[in-house]
């Protein structure tokens, strides 16, 4: 029951470090993830996956499997193709980017080890797996392309027979005469960078239950996913179902990070299987399947060159990016985004008078790749920051000083970057200065110098980043990709004066829903617990994007603010009609409608009772409708650029190659911080994922395209022991375009952490002549950088 106070303090919730409403339930083991759900008549799906990286399917015999205990049906690709269209990712602005059609279950040809070939539906997963082993397939192996060099070699065999070339895309990005600049520069540094293929490893693997009801002809899919509306569109169009009869519901999701953003053939197969059998079908990827078939990312090499004048100012930057993707371009966003962003985000924090960039994306017979948290931005950051430090060493300049000399300042902004990105106001200098104080940069440099005399090699690394958040329709719209960039919020004032909010945004633990509740509650003058926020159900929430490109609070929070203001206005108009006072003389605070002096005139709960049950007591033309819906999408700017800086302090054991992380810092400017408790932990979590990427994580294939890292013992993610404490601080430069002023922050941690370790390692090894070359920096690679 909402309380009513005589003279309440105005309840400021925005900016407070408040815990999430979901937390208590999740910690007690009462979360509901897809695999916790069971439906009547549900079948379990296991997949026969291709053991070969490239092969033709000659024949499939499913009779043994179909007769196995507990099996309901075995489905081949040919059968499924009759019901389900293949996924074909396209970009309207790059019609030359051909992607082979990706069938839900492969038909005729498999192009990566792990591609799904047959589906077994059985009473239990164990029985389905038993039966899958009884399927007999005769294959003809085809040539395997397992490296980018092999993909580009003249006469290279095609990764898929539908491709004429393995080069998916070649895109130039240039401005200024770079060659002349390089010839005349005082200092030129060049380096080749390599980034290992990695994957997301959400602790809950991908999972869905597809529930096709054949009589009413409706499809409901419970799916662990970031973008239910996108999947609604994918299923409707690929299974030829009317969109309004398709409902995708994301329950609690155990981590996503971009893995659960894309459309997967194996998930489409589960949905098609439900349509074909008329029964609910559950598919839960096991961990081997997750490592094998989740989107991979980041496999890139970058040839970088930086030209500086004698004072260390950048005069030119050149980045040649080769992005090695998988056999198919992932649907619907395609696989080219990581490579493009790696090039576009190089040099972004700096004045770069001349820039040359090229992105080439090549297919390989490996798992499809797609956008993973922070997309290609970490690569652009690591390359830029390392080149800058290499230049600083040549000129005898301090790392912080060379950055100061080159940062874009208020006089330079707004601007369009050489890579074509729009930059608004940034706080690069402020973040740097705050960082240097918090980490005691001078003290660490002194400590480093002392220890070097004793043969202890420590490194200090800085990584500046500019980050694209709150992305609007300009990213996927011109590409023709059917992904909505708007976010929406619907508010309903219930009869007891409590508020229900539904949002298009989804939350996998970020705390976005709590942030939205804070915005709504503060605007309506009620307590936080008087607002509930529901998300994830595409049939019951406003249409929107979900979770991607750091949009939740920035865009979803803005929609919440707009909706709350609309509802507030309606409440005050109705109250004014009832109280016979002008609406603009009334306030809403402390759960009541109040006069300007704060005196309570009517409890909100009382107003709610009347507008719901006693419209007969309202003046006939007085408004009584207390449900509002607003959407928001950036219109005047295409996205909100945020910025920050990270630092790493580490020690290298030069005899074993082991790296010990001693400390990590971040100063981030994500605009208005609605909930620092949620934001800070998103930063920490992202940083640790970035540390995983730069030190441990690697999807390793052999030369036959066989994945060698199929367990969590081989694919290593960070555990608690090796991670440092992470210091977090903020600068706040609010977004001009929104009322709320918040930018996104979900990717910032993962964006800058690799770069901070690249530069710290470079700093540690520089006196010994070592230069890091390839991440992850395993002990073997560190020893390689040191030479013999």
């Amino acid at each position, binding site marked *: 029951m909402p309380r009513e106070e005589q003279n309440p303090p105005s309840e400021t919730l925005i900016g407070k470090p408040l815990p999430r409403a979901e937390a208590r339930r999740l910690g007690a083991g009462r979360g509901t993830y897809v695999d916790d759900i069971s439906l009547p008549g549900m079948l379990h799906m296991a997949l026969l996956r291709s053991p070969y990286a490239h092969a033709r399917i000659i024949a499939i015999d499913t009779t043994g499997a179909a007769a196995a205990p507990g099996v309901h049906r075995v489905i081949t690709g040919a059968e499924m193709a009759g019901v389900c269209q293949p996924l074909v990712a396209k970009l309207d602005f790059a019609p030359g980017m051909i992607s082979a059609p990706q069938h839900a279950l492969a038909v005729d040809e498999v192009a990566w080890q792990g591609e799904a070939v047959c589906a077994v539906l059985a009473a239990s997963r164990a029985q389905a797996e038993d039966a899958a082993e009884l399927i007999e397939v005769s294959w003809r192996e085809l040539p395997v392309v397992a490296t980018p060099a092999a993909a580009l070699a003249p006469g290279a065999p095609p990764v898929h027979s539908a491709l004429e070339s393995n080069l998916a895309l070649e895109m130039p990005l240039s401005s200024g005469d770079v060659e002349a600049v390089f010839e005349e520069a005082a200092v030129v540094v060049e380096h080749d960078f390599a980034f290992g293929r990695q994957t997301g490893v959400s602790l809950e693997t991908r999972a869905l239950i597809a529930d096709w009801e054949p009589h009413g002809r409706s499809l409901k899919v419970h799916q662990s996913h970031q973008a239910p509306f996108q999947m609604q569109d994918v299923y409707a169009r690929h299974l030829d179902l009317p969109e309004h009869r398709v409902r995708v519901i994301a329950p609690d999701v155990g981590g996503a990070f971009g893995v659960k953003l894309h459309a997967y053939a194996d998930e489409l197969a589960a949905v098609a299987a439900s349509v074909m059998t008329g029964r609910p079908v559950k598919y839960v990827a096991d961990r081997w399947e997750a490592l094998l078939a989740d989107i991979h990312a980041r496999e890139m090499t970058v040839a970088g060159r930086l030209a500086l004048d004698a004072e260390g100012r950048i005069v030119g930057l050149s980045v040649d990016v080769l992005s090695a993707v998988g056999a198919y371009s992932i649907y619907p966003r395609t696989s080219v985004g990581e490579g493009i962003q790696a090039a576009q985000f190089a040099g972004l924090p700096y004045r770069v008078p001349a820039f040359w960039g090229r992105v080439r994306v090549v297919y390989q017979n490996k798992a499809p790749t797609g956008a993973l948290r922070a997309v290609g931005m970490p690569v652009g950051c690591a390359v830029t920051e390392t080149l800058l430090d290499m230049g600083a060493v040549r000129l005898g300049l301090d790392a912080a000083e060379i950055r100061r000399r080159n940062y874009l300042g208020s006089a330079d902004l707004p601007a369009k970057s050489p890579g074509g990105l729009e930059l608004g106001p940034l706080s690069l200098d402020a973040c740097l200065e705050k960082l240097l104080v918090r980490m005691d940069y001078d003290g660490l440099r002194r400590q480093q110098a002392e220890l070097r005399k004793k043969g202890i090699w420590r490194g200090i690394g800085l990584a500046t980043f500019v980050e694209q958040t709150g992305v609007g329709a300009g990213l996927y719209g011109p590409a023709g990709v059917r992904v909505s960039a708007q976010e929406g919020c619907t508010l309903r004032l219930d009869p007891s004066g409590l508020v229900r909010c539904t949002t298009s945004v989804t939350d996998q633990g970020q705390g976005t829903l709590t942030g939205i509740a804070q915005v709504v509650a503060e605007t309506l003058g009620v307590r936080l617990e008087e607002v509930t926020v529901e998300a994830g159900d595409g049939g019951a929430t406003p249409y929107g994007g979900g979770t991607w490109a750091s949009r939740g609070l920035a865009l979803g929070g803005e929609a919440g603010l707009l909706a709350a203001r609309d509802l507030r206005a309606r409440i005050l108009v109705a109250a004014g009609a009832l109280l016979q006072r002008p609406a603009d003389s009334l306030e809403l605070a402390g759960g009541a409608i109040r006069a300007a002096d704060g005196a309570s005139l009517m409890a909100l709960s009382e107003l709610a009772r009347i507008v719901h049950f006693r419209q007969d007591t309202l003046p006939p033309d007085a408004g009584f409708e207390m449900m509002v819906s607003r959407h928001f999408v950036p219109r005047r700017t295409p996205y909100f650029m945020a910025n920050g800086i990270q630092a790493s302090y580490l020690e290298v054991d030069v005899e*074993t190659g082991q790296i010990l992380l001693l400390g990590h810092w971040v100063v981030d400017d994500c605009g208005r911080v609605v909930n620092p408790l949620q934001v800070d932990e998103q930063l920490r979590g992202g940083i640790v994922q970035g540390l995983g990427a730069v030190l441990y994580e690697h999807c390793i294939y052999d030369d036959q395209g066989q994945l060698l890292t199929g367990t969590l013992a081989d694919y290593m993610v960070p555990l608690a022991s090796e991670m440092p404490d992470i210091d977090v601080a903020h600068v706040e430069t609010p977004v001009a375009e929104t009322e709320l002023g918040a930018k996104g922050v979900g990717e910032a941690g993962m964006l800058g952490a690799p770069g901070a370790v690249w530069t710290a390692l470079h700093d540690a090894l520089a006196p010994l002549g070592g230069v890091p070359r390839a991440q992850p920096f395993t*002990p073997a690679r560190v020893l390689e950088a040191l030479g013999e």
Partner: protein
Amino acid sequence: MKAPPFSYLRPEDLDAALEVLAAHKGDAVVLAGGQSLMPSLALRLARPAALVDINRISQLTGIELRGDRVRIGALARHCEIAQSDLVASHLPLLRTAIGHVGHRGVRNRGTFGGSLANGDPAAELVACAVALDATVQLRSLRDERRVAAGDFFQSPLETDRRPDEILTEVLVPARRPDEVFGFRELSRRTGDFAMVGVAARARLLEAGLRDLRLVVFGCEARPLLSKAAARLVEGTPMDEASARQIAAAVAQEMDPMADLAGDASVKRRQARALVARLLMEMAHG
């Protein structure tokens, strides 16, 4: 990743267990802690017809002092070893090494006998058994035999145990007053198997280290008991230079397997560093 079908048997005593193993003629496997067997079943790498759960066989439990040796029953769990005062006093090398074995959840179930019977050359306890010159007891229906740890581990995951035998206990020489121990492991993360590790035991006398048993593990096909180290250490005053020299000789003696963590030369280089540091630590405390 659900296990393939198998029969499950849970004999109440050792003879019953041995009968079952004999009857299955190699197609039954022993289930002790299950921390290695269960993952291999989940990955369908192992497909036994039957699992023989020996966890109820009480005569396989226990840790006792028997004269100058410590008897560790095959079913002694890692957590028991970690908490045992007897082990702390008489087998300090084991006490140190056990903290590196997996994680708490694994140590609460994993068994000493199970680790040795699994014979993973990257396993800490396997290396310690060799370093301490432990003896493994094997029983079958037909007979009982004892095998020195140094002979027991033959190649990765292959030991001298026959399919109809159960490893029942391990006898480990207890610490003598003049003995010192060393253990160093290079792993990417706490609890991982060693990329390269060294476990050692020696007597520390006035003149220096003697009777050194230094085992390199992690990258060798079987734990390498270094003859070079044993020979070179005798009568050598230990300083940085001599430690490095001995370490270099050990590296030459190695035959490391290349893997995802690095090639043979990387392993040798890392082992050299570990051995040199270990020797200095053992010689000078």
